[in-house]
């Protein structure tokens, strides 16, 4: 074989012209979107993108490395609180605060990763769940963190005020551009990580930890690294989330949120970046838009409201998010264990071979 191959093709970000084309189309659409988005929808998109960041990171841990994690709302909270407090208490500029906060979250991820070395499956699930709850309760009891009253995010100044460089973002659409840029960057990082040494080591640990060890992968390093990386992602997302909400309290980071994150990853497709994005978009839309505004759904909306009033609690629509989430989860596990992304791969294969 003297055919010269370019091995860079194997690891290129865009492996084909088609992918590049659609990526560009998507990016143009995303950057143009605010022109037609209402403020509410800009807010919803911001929330979706924040969740995309969490899901992409969580999938590195759960999907690629095969470690269950039910406490990511904890890292999300650490990101939010640390970013805001670093800005308000220590006057650290936004970007620096966000990065430091993400590293703080990563450090906690590393710490949580240590017991994970000895725990598997349900035990790991319980340990991470306990971590998430502990963070929520600790925050609720500390005055500095605003206690149960919560915290208010400061003005979103992305410049460096100390140097007189002020760039304050006030509108939802302004935040949209900021969050979109960071989401794209974090997604690209994840794609690259999964294509290189560390990403392969994660997958190796998931598929056969014994074989991973005998080819020289240090399980301690790479398992804790996977926790730290996914916590870093949750930390970045949390820091942005603080400004999407503007105000938050410990209850914002309830256990249910950790579960919702996990559902995003499972529904989208374990171990795939595209899957994480799909899952985060779908679940956030369902939970925070469609099911929240049930009465606005044509035809069945009124009926569902009536059902809710008749049979479910008077607190109303929240029921539907939970029921809907449960149904989506059950449906995925029964019909498409590989998640939406798995289904998409199958459809693609089908069309490739069609009509033969």
């Amino acid at each position, binding site marked *: 074989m003297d055919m010269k191959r370019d091995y*860079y093709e194997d690891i290129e970000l865009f492996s084909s012209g088609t992918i590049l084309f659609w990526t560009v189309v998507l990016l143009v659409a995303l950057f143009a979107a605010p022109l037609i988005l209402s403020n509410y929808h800009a807010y919803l998109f911001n929330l979706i993108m924040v969740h995309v960041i969490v899901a992409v990171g969580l999938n590195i841990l759960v999907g690629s490395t095969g470690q269950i994690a039910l406490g990511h709302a904890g890292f999300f909270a650490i990101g939010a609180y640390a970013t805001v407090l670093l800005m308000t208490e220590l006057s650290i500029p936004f970007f620096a605060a966000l990065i430091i906060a993400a590293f703080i979250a990563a450090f906690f991820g590393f710490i949580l990763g240590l017991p994970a070395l000895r725990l598997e499956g349900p035990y790991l699930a319980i340990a991470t769940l306990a971590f998430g709850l502990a963070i929520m309760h600790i925050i609720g009891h500390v005055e500095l963190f605003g206690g149960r009253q919560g915290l208010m995010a400061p003005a979103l100044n992305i410049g460096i005020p100390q140097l007189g460089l002020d760039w304050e973002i006030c509108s939802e659409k302004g935040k949209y551009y900021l969050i979109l840029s960071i989401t794209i960057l974090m997604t690209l990082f994840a794609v690259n990580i999964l294509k290189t040494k560390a990403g392969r080591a994660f997958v*190796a640990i998931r598929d056969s930890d*014994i*074989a991973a060890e*005998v*080819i020289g992968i240090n399980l301690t390093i790479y398992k804790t690294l996977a926790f730290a990386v996914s916590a870093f992602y949750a930390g970045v997302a949390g820091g942005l989330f603080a400004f999407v909400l503007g105000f938050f309290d410990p209850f914002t980071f309830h256990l249910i949120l950790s579960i919702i994150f996990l559902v995003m990853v499972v529904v989208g497709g374990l171990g795939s970046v595209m899957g994480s994005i799909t899952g985060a978009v779908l679940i956030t839309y369902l939970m925070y838009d469609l099911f929240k505004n049930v009465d606005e759904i044509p035809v069945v909306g009124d009926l569902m409201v009536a059902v809710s009033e008749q049979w479910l609690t008077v607190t109303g629509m929240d029921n539907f998010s939970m029921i809907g989430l449960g149904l989506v989860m059950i449906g995925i596990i029964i019909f498409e264990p590989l998640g939406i992304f798995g289904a998409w791969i199958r459809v693609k294969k089908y069309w490739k071979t069609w009509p033969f």
Partner: protein
Amino acid sequence: MAYFSIENLSISFGGLKAVNNISFNVEKNEIFSIIGPNGSGKTTIFNLISGIYHPDAGAIHMEGENLVGKSPDRVARKGIARTFQNIELFANATVMDNLMLGRHIHMKTGIFGGAFMFGKRSPAAREEVKHRERVERIIDFLELQSVRDQFVGSLAYGKRKLVEVGRALALEPKVMLMDEPSAGMNTEEKDDLTIWIGDIREDYGVTILLIEHDMNMIMGISDHVFAMNQGEKITLGTPAEVQKHPEVVKAYLGEEVIS
């Protein structure tokens, strides 16, 4: 001192002495085979060498250094690679990625370097390309080109065994432990494998410890054969010597004939 040696190695599981006071020397660049009936402790010796099990007593030396007490990943970094009796591949990764994982200890890109793999000239991309070229040579050598980008889980048994050999080879090991590499292969595949094992020794300069049940293969390529039964040594010698040993005939070959 021998290039590679195990000395008075013992391990028990409960009351069972799986490996009982075993010693042998392996010279550099030889093919050293271990034979014995099922359950005689062959795989356990490999697990002790790899650091998966820790011996109750005894030592394992390579190039004068004791390997006992080292974790499997440290043993790998010392230059010992292995294949498994019951294939341990990364089933949801491609053949290429499985072999690239064999390069793990030779690669430097960290999590940040990896994250910033933007463009052909980034350090991460350059390292990837360099190691992919190396792995590609192994893929050519073992004739895995046609399955290069397939997921390992979807491959036939014989191919999977080969991928394991390729992955071990990608480590550039000094010593390679092969646990029944030909099990489940057809005659043609076995013949190819026999030649490749010879090449791995000759061209790659690897010292090979081989566990096999296929007597033809053993007798054809081994420099020394170590026969054992129920955790104990029966005999050690050249293939011709071992083949004639009465206890080998009784304990091992006899059983082969019956089954």
